C-alpha cells in the first residue's frame, strides 16, 4: 500500500488492466474499463455509463451496475457519434455515475452542471482523447470505397492516421486501410464537426486517457486532471485492477505534439469548410435564410444538443409559430442566439437534422465570434458561468 501511494504523485502515467481479458478487449490498455469496474466494486459509483457495440456503425449507451457488462463494452467505437451528456443528466440526480467521455461529452456535462442539471460531485468523467468520430453513413461509404461489403464489416480501427476496416465474407477476413488525409481529400471521412474540433485531450474531465504518448499499444496513457480523478485512479491501483508505470518524459512531449498537430489541421479544415467567410453582408443574409428555410421544426437539434438544458417549455418552442412565416423562424433564431456563448461545436444537431441543414457551420459562425469576443470557452470550467446570464460584460468590466 505505502509503496503504491508514494508512486502516485505524478500527473502522467502509463496504465493498463491487470485482468488479461479486459486488457485484450480494451482499445489500448483496458485502463478505462478496469477503472470503471474498480469504481463500481469499491462503491465510488452506483452505475457506469458505457457504449455497447451493436455493429461498427452503431453504439448504444448502456447504464449498468454489472461489471460484466462494462467489460463487454471495452474498446473504441469511431462510427458511433453519440454524445453521452443527456443520459447523464437523466440519471445523475439519483445515482453516482462513472463514464468514458470524449472532450465533447465532458464539455456538455460541464455546461449542464453550470445550468444545475447535474452535480459534478456525482459524475466521474474518464476522458478519452479524441481524433474524431465518423457518421455511420460515411463509414459505410468508406467500406464501399475499400471494395468491402459494408454489411460484412465487423471491425474498425483508427491508428496512426489511417482508417482500418475488417470485413468477414464467407468466413474469410479481409483488412483494408487508407490514410485519413487521402480519404478526406476524396470527400470521405470524419464528421465536419470533428474535422474542425480543437479539443483533443479532455483535461476538463477527471482523467484524460489515450494512446498518444504511450510506447505500447496495450498501455493507456493517463493524465490525472482532478482530485476526483486521482481518487478513482489510485483506488483502481490499490485494489489491484490496474497496473501503472510512470509515463516517459518523451511520451508527454509526443502527446503534446500530436495534439498541437491535430489542432493545426483542425484550424485549416475550419477555414476550408467555411463557405460563408468569403460572402458579402447581403450574401451572408441570403445564405442563412436559404439554409434555414428548409427546417421542418422537428425539434431534434434541440433534443440532442448537449448544452441546452431547456425542456418542453423552452422559449424557442413556446415562441415559435409556423403561421408567422418569418424569413427565419423564431425557433431557429432563438436557438442560434441562445447558444452564442455556449455552443461547443460538437455537431450533434447537424447529425440528426432530417433535412441536412449545415447546422454545425451556422452555430459555429454565430457562436465562435461571440466566444472569441468574450474570451470565453464553454465546457471547460464549471465555475465560469454562461456570459449571457451575467450582469456585467466581461469586456466592459475590463475597459471601464
Amino acid at each position, binding site marked *: 500500500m505505502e509503496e503504491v501511494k508514494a508512486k502516485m504523485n505524478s500527473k502522467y502515467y502509463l496504465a493498463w488492466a491487470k485482468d488479461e481479458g479486459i486488457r485484450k478487449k480494451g482499445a489500448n490498455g483496458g485502463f478505462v474499463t478496469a477503472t470503471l469496474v474498480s469504481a463500481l466494486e469499491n462503491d465510488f459509483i452506483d452505475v457506469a455509463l458505457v457504449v455497447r457495440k451493436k455493429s461498427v456503425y452503431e453504439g448504444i449507451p448502456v447504464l449498468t451496475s454489472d461489471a460484466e457488462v462494462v467489460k463487454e463494452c471495452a474498446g473504441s467505437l469511431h462510427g458511433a457519434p453519440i454524445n453521452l451528456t443527456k443520459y447523464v443528466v437523466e440519471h445523475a440526480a439519483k445515482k453516482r455515475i462513472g463514464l468514458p467521455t470524449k472532450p465533447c461529452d465532458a464539455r456538455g456535462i460541464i455546461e449542464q452542471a453550470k445550468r444545475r442539471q447535474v452535480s459534478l460531485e456525482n459524475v466521474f468523467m474518464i476522458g478519452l482523447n479524441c481524433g474524431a468520430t465518423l457518421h455511420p453513413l460515411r463509414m459505410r461509404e468508406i467500406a464501399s470505397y475499400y471494395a468491402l461489403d459494408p454489411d460484412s464489416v465487423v471491425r474498425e480501427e483508427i491508428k496512426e492516421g489511417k482508417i482500418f476496416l475488417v470485413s468477414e465474407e464467407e468466413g474469410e477476413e479481409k483488412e483494408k486501410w487508407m490514410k485519413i488525409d487521402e480519404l478526406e481529400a476524396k470527400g470521405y471521412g470524419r464528421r465536419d464537426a470533428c474535422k474542425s474540433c480543437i479539443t483533443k485531450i479532455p483535461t476538463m474531465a477527471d482523467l484524460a486517457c489515450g494512446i498518444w504518448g504511450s510506447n505500447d499499444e496495450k498501455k493507456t496513457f493517463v493524465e490525472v486532471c482532478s482530485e476526483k480523478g486521482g481518487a478513482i485512479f489510485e483506488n483502481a491501483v490499490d485494489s489491484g485492477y490496474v497496473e501503472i508505470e510512470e509515463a516517459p518524459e518523451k511520451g508527454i512531449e509526443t502527446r503534446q505534439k500530436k495534439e498541437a498537430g491535430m489542432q493545426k489541421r483542425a484550424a485549416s479544415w475550419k477555414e476550408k469548410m467555411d463557405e460563408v467567410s468569403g460572402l458579402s*453582408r*447581403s*450574401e*451572408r*443574409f*441570403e*445564405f*442563412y*435564410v436559404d439554409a434555414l428555410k428548409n427546417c421542418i421544426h422537428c425539434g431534434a437539434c434541440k433534443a440532442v444538443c448537449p448544452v441546452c438544458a431547456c425542456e418542453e417549455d423552452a*422559449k424557442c418552442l413556446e*415562441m415559435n409559430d409556423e403561421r*408567422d*412565416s*418569418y*424569413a*427565419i423562424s*423564431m425557433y431557429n*433564431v*432563438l436557438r*442560434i*442566439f441562445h447558444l*452564442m*456563448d455556449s455552443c461547443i461545436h460538437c455537431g450533434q444537431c447537424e447529425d440528426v437534422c432530417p433535412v441536412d441543414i449545415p447546422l454545425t457551420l451556422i452555430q459555429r*459562425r*454565430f457562436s465562435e*465570434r*461571440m466566444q472569441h*469576443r468574450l474570451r470565453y470557452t464553454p465546457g471547460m470550467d464549471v465555475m465560469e458561468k454562461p*456570459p*449571457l446570464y*451575467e*450582469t*456585467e*460584460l466581461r469586456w*466592459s468590466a475590463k475597459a471601464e
Partner: protein
Amino acid sequence: MAEREEWEPKILAFCCNWCSYAGADAAGLERRQVPPTIRVIRVMCSGRIDPAFVLMGLLEGADAVLVTGCHIGDCHYVDANYKTRNRYEFLNEFVDELGLEPERLWLRWISASEGSLFAEMVREVTEKIKRIGPSPLRSEWKK
C-alpha cells in the same frame, strides 16, 4: 422611384417606463418634432426587454429596433440595465453575423428630462434607415 420616396421606415422602440418613456412624453410636451416613424412599446424596465422581443421585432419587419433605458446607475431595479447592455452586445453580434446592417439595432440611455435627446435620436435613426432602405427581413415577409 416615386414609390421609394414615399417609403417611411417603421422603427420599433422599447422604452422604460421610468426614463425613456417619460422622455418621449417630454418631447411631446415640449412640442418637439418627432418623426412618425416610431412605434413605442412601454416596458417597466429595460431589463424586461427579452432579446427574443427584439429579434421578433426584426422578424416582423421592423426596419430598426431601439432599446432604450435609464442611464447606467439610474435603473430603478438596481442593475437591470447592465443586463440590458450585456444582452445588447449579444444582439449586436447576432445582427451583424446574420447579415443585417448594424444600423438596425440601437441602444440609448435617455432620462425622463431628455425629451430633446429622444426626438433627436428618432430623427437620426429615421435618417440612417431611409438611407439604407427597408429591412431585408421585411421584404421577405411581404412576399
